[in-house]
């Protein structure tokens, strides 16, 4: 018999289909019968889905401009033309 506690530990593996077939079958059988685990799985899966649907935000314009300026300054302060790869001083 599979216990509810064991199911909780395996939910990530279950939703990512990383379980052995017979183990998956056993768990699915439990889930269908257990009124605790079934809603738990449902909300667990939903939680993961919500995270995956977080859309990236745009970098605010002023942040981007300041950032870009700093990068530009850094790049141009360190001239790196193709012929000057070994620019480290050896005194």
């Amino acid at each position, binding site marked *: 018999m599979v216990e509810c506690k064991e199911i909780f530990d395996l939910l990530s593996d279950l939703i990512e289909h990383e379980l052995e077939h017979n183990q998956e079958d056993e768990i699915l059988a439990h889930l269908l019968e257990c009124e605790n685990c*079934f*809603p738990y799985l449902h909300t667990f899966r939903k939680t993961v889905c919500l995270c995956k649907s977080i859309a*990236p935000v745009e*970098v605010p314009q002023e942040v981007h401009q300041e950032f870009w300026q700093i990068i530009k300054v*850094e790049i141009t302060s360190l001239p790196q033309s193709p012929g000057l790869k070994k620019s480290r001083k050896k005194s």
Partner: protein
Amino acid sequence: MTEEIKYHNFGLQLSPSDEELVSDAQNGDNSAFEKLVLRYESRIYNLVLHMTGDQSLTRDILQETFLSSFRNLKKFKGNSKFSTWLYKIAVNYVLIHRRKKKILISLDDYKPGSEDEHPHQIADWADSPAATLDNSELKTKLNNAIETLPEEYKSVLILSDVEGLSNKEIQGVLKLSLPAIKSRLHRARLILREKLSEYFISDVKNKILEQKTPLSLLPPGKPQQENEG
């Protein structure tokens, strides 16, 4: 599924490829480095913002990450993807700043209560109309819930479920074994599910209070006239 298309260029071959740009940049082509910056600016910004929840800190770390990557570009040997290397630098800066601010939350404060969880408290809110990210309240709640995860769980969850990195890639960013990544990711999801449950349960409670019908959602009592044998 939505998770596959979020960062559309993640799995696609970009032209020129990261490898080509890195190689050009390492040979002194600054415009190649600029292309890499533009390619990853938004992704690093979002990663750090999720990890810190602090816009001004995110601005600083964004700068530090790319300055550091530029200064150390020659040290990048291509053993991992460039993006993984960049993530690693950014995550390290987040950790450095966090240590400075001593806002590391103890692991012991958060234990998923799966063992003690009372079966009756497992509310099935997954199909609730409120349970989509079109709901801006939930969006805020979700972001807050992620931010307040213990650091050990948070990085893994953000890299995996928000940023869409594979466990193998996460291994390149964090110095963790694959089993450790899997176990932390799982615990992070359990904690997060619990935090969201609180939201949904309190949401229901608020609605009940608003309607001033606190008893209406309780299971109806047995009718008195029921036969008793």
